[in-house]
């Protein structure tokens, strides 16, 4: 482990150097296995948040109070520690430049992680694929990668980021402040006729309702890819 970055009060990114890492695709995940001194093991899956970049990769972990693995990864682990991981895993919930767009990304909370890998890849590849990210967070402090998203938008490469806040609203907030719903998706998404590629990642209720709304708005089910990033297990 090379470095730690505190993203929000509950979320930490782990920057890892993995010798022999076969380059991943944006959207894939890894299995992390922890082993205690008595041989006890616990394993969980985490999405890769970084664009493919040699043997380096970033995992972003939300600390769950009743979790077993996430409090260790996002609390105990320090630079220099070693980690056992397996991957890259998955090949359906992935985007690469050749797939084109337009690209609609819908995230809830730490569900942003695999979508961030796609945005970082898009940036690294200097892609101009029109892309919109609709990102639901509890509060402004809970927005992961906020500064980086602002910077990516400011580059003017055809990326738009629409935040919505579901719990606490800062004074002067002029953005959206409710859960993602059909009307919001209708306003943010490209018309179905433009056949956007859609990736939805977040907790199950958000994923279920957003995917259903998108189908009802007329988007092709086969163009809507979903991934769960819920607190189950942690």
């Amino acid at each position, binding site marked *: 482990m090379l470095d730690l970055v505190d993203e929000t009060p509950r979320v930490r990114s782990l920057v890892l150097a993995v010798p022999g890492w076969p380059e991943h695709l944006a959207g894939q995940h890894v299995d992390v296995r922890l082993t205690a001194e008595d041989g006890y093991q616990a394993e969980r899956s985490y999405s890769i948040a970084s664009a493919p970049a040699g043997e380096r990769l970033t995992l972003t972990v939300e600390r769950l109070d009743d979790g077993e693995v996430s409090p*260790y990864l996002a609390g105990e682990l320090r630079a220099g520690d070693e980690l056992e991981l397996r991957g890259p895993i998955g090949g359906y919930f992935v985007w690469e430049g050749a797939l084109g767009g337009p690209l609609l990304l819908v995230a809830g909370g730490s569900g942003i992680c695999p979508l961030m890998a796609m945005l970082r890849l898009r940036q690294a590849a200097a892609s101009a694929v029109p892309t919109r990210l609709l990102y639901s967070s509890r509060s402004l402090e809970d927005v992961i990668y906020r500064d980086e998203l602002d910077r990516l938008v400011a580059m003017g490469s055809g990326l738009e980021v629409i935040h919505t806040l579901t719990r606490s609203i800062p004074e002067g907030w002029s953005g959206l402040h409710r859960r993602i719903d059909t009307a919001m998706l209708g306003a943010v998404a490209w018309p179905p006729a433009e056949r956007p590629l859609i990736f939805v990642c977040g907790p199950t209720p958000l994923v279920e309702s957003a995917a259903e709304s998108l*189908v009802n708005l007329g988007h092709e089910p086969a163009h809507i890819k979903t991934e769960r990033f819920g607190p189950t297990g942690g």
Partner: protein
Amino acid sequence: MGFVSRAFKGRPRDQPRDARVPPGQYLVRDFPVLSAGPTPHTSLAEWSFSIEGEVDEEKRWSWEELRALPSETVTRDIHCVTKWSKLDTTWEGISVDTLLEGVETAADYVMAFCDGGYTTNLPLEDVTGGKAWIAFAFDGQPLESQHGGPARLLVPHLYFWKSAKWVRGFRLMNEDSPGFWETYGYHMYGDPWQEQRYSGD
């Protein structure tokens, strides 16, 4: 001694590990939902279950016809490749043996196919002999759509991605062929006790 994660303790281990939990799995009490795309909603009037492919005669049941077949209630442990296991889940469904009665085939494999385009492959002998059901109820209630309703395949002795949600039929095959997740690197068979998660395990 193998790899040790510095300062990792894990959950208290005052209880011996439950012999019903396969390696690498942890127990959940809720029922997590996993799927690769939107939940399909097929009306029961349009729903049917088919057995096709390498069979002498294809078979097909409407929802009413399927529900008129004798059903069984079974309690089984289930194990998801994403590491969670859930013990003592109770299902009601039609045994696949019942559906295959009188089906003449030399096939050794089946491809389960589903609304939404999902598929998964299994050896025929893993869905016969009282090992698999077309389940339409969970915990005494009609199966919710997000858990695969109106009906899903239940093959509890394999990782749960083999228990295809929204199942609409079996295509019998002479040769094994990868289904949806199997194409993306998941194991062709998926025995949780052998930790057959990914290709090569």
